[in-house]
């Protein structure tokens, strides 16, 4: 469903992604792993249109996205959960969750039920300004925000940071269940979480893909030892 | 943004450059009937190049430099008229102007810390400098009115010669003496500023403009540094004010208006914010255009605004760098024509 072909992208004149080729199909969970600074976050941002693409193609459902502004890409059914959480700090939890609903022209409490079942504490913080939530709660909120519009592709950046292990496990379980309607692309620092939850893994190094395969293949080829634990 | 930092120019570039500069500053005023215009260009070049160190190089947008210019000039003028007709008033005036620069800079920059969004930092600078201009204008219009001449400006300045040392006096009505002073002072101050700008300090200024946080990480106290640069530009503004007073024998509160300083901003933008001599090109273009256009139409301001919009959108680097690369381009072309076999 998502295809990156020979993508070159960067921030202004400094390039961070070099000839990147990657894909995510329907009904699967894919992780990107690698050391700090290899371009995991940049890949997600490039898909979303938040950084400058110099050449190469990004296709979603066979449609070329390269020229599209961010908001149009969002409307195609891609949801993004950034590593800095991207919470709207001065508005309430409820309002934070309403923004994506407005954008995708959706209504209704039924979309919120999933969020509540995963993160019941959000109900308690419903009318609180999001900036007053704790780090972990904010992390939950931002994941909930991504889920609430039932996207075709959910992109998550480093969610293991700031979440208690049981919560992560709940998320993993939930993601497995969601797989049928929402594919997930995960950029993850914590290799164990990534391997635990994914079907396939891309190992990035210096802005390109160094290795990719199923979780089993990664273990066999010792890709992690080769490319991450250098 | 292409930076050409520390591009080591061949020696003779400097020699030629400074020779041209010396010619313009010291000889040209005596050769042409447009001497007032040339003098204006000289004094304003000094003013803007000092200003540009703060504005273009370091990224501090201030509309207050007219204040420092004016305070210096007024102090000299008032002291000379009411106290002591000697050259000692000049350093006092310049010192006062510089001190004002320091104070305004301090207030503006103190809160412009790096943890605050860049737009906010610039907003503070702009607002405080506008505030300073209004307050100063008020001070010189009301309490100090009988000294400053209020709306009419300072009158009666050049009537007596200014004592230097012993019997040596400067005849304030003698064009030759004045032009020589203006030319020599400007030449040396600009040379000094150029040395500063070409040194590592100049690099730091540009670095602060681009990413102040990182410069802080390198161990520099960016607040102190910026304040230093700002005060320096205030110092240059004060010198320019002194020279202006010597040359025109007149100063009025109009210079405190932020619109006056905004002309400096336009000049720096036109001439190139990143090139040291850019503002000089900008000054020449600006003053000549102003002269020419004002004689045709009253809407000089409108024309200026359009030029400014155009430059911001399409020419953010200014015209200066383009003009400076012209000699090199010409030499290259000429070189190619003469040595076809090697090219």
């Amino acid at each position, binding site marked *: 469903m998502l295809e990156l072909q020979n993508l070159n992208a960067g921030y202004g004149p400094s390039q961070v992604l070099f000839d990147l080729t990657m894909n995510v199909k329907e009904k699967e969970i894919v992780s990107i792993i690698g050391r700090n600074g290899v371009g995991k976050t940049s890949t997600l941002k490039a898909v979303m249109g938040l950084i400058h693409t110099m050449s190469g193609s990004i296709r979603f459902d066979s449609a070329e996205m390269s020229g599209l502004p*961010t908001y149009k890409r969002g409307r195609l059914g891609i949801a993004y959960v950034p590593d800095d959480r991207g919470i*709207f700090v*001065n508005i309430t939890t409820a309002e934070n969750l309403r923004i994506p609903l407005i954008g995708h022209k959706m209504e209704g409490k039924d979309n919120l039920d999933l969020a509540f079942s995963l993160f019941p504490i959000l109900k308690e913080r419903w009318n609180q300004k999001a900036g007053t939530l704790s780090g972990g709660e904010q992390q939950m909120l931002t994941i909930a*925000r991504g889920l609430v519009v039932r996207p075709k592709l959910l992109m998550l950046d480093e969610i293991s940071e700031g979440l208690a292990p049981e919560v992560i496990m709940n998320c993993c379980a939930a993601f497995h269940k969601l797989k049928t309607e929402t594919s997930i692309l995960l950029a993850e620092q914590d290799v164990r979480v990534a391997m635990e939850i994914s079907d396939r893994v891309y190992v990035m190094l210096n802005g390109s893909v160094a290795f990719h395969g199923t979780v089993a293949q990664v273990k066999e080829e010792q890709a992690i030892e080769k490319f991450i634990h250098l | 943004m292409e930076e050409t930092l520390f591009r080591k120019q061949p020696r003779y570039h400097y020699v030629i450059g400074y020779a041209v500069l010396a010619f313009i500053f010291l000889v040209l005023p005596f050769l042409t009937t447009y001497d007032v215009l040339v003098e204006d260009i000289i004094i304003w070049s000094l003013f803007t190049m000092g200003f540009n160190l703060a504005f273009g190089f370091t990224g501090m947008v201030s509309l207050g430099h007219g204040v420092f210019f004016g305070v210096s000039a007024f102090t000299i003028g008032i002291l000379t008229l009411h106290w002591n007709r000697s050259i000692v008033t000049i350093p006092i005036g310049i010192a006062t102007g510089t001190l004002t620069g320091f104070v305004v800079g301090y207030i503006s920059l103190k809160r412009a810390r790096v943890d605050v*969004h860049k737009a906010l930092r610039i907003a503070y600078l702009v607002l*405080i400098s506008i*505030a300073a201009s209004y307050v100063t204008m008020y001070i010189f219009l*009301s309490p100090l009115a009988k000294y400053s001449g209020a709306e009419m400006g300072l009158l009666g300045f050049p009537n007596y010669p200014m004592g230097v040392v012993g019997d040596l006096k400067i005849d304030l009505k003698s064009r030759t003496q004045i032009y020589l002073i203006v030319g020599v002072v400007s030449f040396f101050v600009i040379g000094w500023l150029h040395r500063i700008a070409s040194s590592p300090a100049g690099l730091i200024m540009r670095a602060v403009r681009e990413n102040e946080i990182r410069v802080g990480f390198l161990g520099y106290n960016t607040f102190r540094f910026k304040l230093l640069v700002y005060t320096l530009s205030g110092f240059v503004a004060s010198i320019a004010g002194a020279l202006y007073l010597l040359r025109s024998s007149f100063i009025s509160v109009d210079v405190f208006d932020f619109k006056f300083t905004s002309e400096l901003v336009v000049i720096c933008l036109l001439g190139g914010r990143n090139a040291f001599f850019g503002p000089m090109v900008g000054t020449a273009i600006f003053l000549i255009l102003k002269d020419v256009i004002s004689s045709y139409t009253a809407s000089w301001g409108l024309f*200026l605004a359009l030029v400014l919009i155009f430059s911001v959108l399409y020419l953010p680097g200014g015209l200066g760098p383009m003009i400076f690369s012209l000699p090199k381009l010409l030499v290259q072309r000429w070189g190619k024509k003469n040595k076809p076999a090697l090219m």
Partner: protein
Amino acid sequence: MHLLIITQLISGLVSGVLLTLIAIGVALTFGLLKVVNLSHGAIYTLGAYIGLTTVRMCGNFWIGLLLGAVIAGVVGVIFERFCIRKVYEYPVMGFLITFALMMGLTQTIRLIWGPGNQLAPQPAYLMKVVYLGFVPISSYRLFTVLFGAVIMVAMWFLISKTNIGLIVRASLDNRDMVDSFGINSSRIFMFVFGLGSAIAGMCGVLASPIFGLFPDVGGQMLILCFVVVVMGGLGSIRGAMLAGPIIGVVISFTTLISAGFSYAVIFILMAIILLTKPMGFFGDKL
């Protein structure tokens, strides 16, 4: 003596409300686009002059008010779309280009309508004096402050209770995320900018009998708006609503001594605020 104080107080509140309305445009533009919009004052002036010409042509103040608002709004949108938007990333350029737009617009106004003072239009039936208790007040000022308050309430409602207002508030925090959820933030900003400009233009017509009608009036107004915005917190609407009347009242009392004095006081006040509480009343981290 009491009478003087109350009169000045009321006069200050009237100016304050007007200042707030204009300042809201500046505050929003800064919060959303991170650009200090120096041309906002010129837009106010434009509205005022459009009102003048309209009333001259058709004699109806209300049409003048409407047309002033609409044309100011349109011009504002044009400025945003073609000039300001392009320099969003570069605060220095933003300042420069809005400065140029201000100069250009003011000069054009001066060319078209002449540099002098004009007599501002007022509906005849509002040129009476009414009494609040024992205090006389021009019914026009009364009308102005009430109308202004209504608009302020409407703006508040728009910002806090509607979807668009929510989008604006979210964009103040994190514009990229708003985009990522499928919302065209640029279009929303254009709308907000246009609205702010329209209100400024409307204030131009409304306030001309009070503040005067000459090409530089917007510039002077803008300076005061900056003080309001700084005091209330750059980007904060609530702050502007609180600071506006305060500044208005301060001005109306200090003007009794002299205009220059009131400016000096205002600016020293602003400098103090910037030094002690740079975020103003409600400004949050940007």
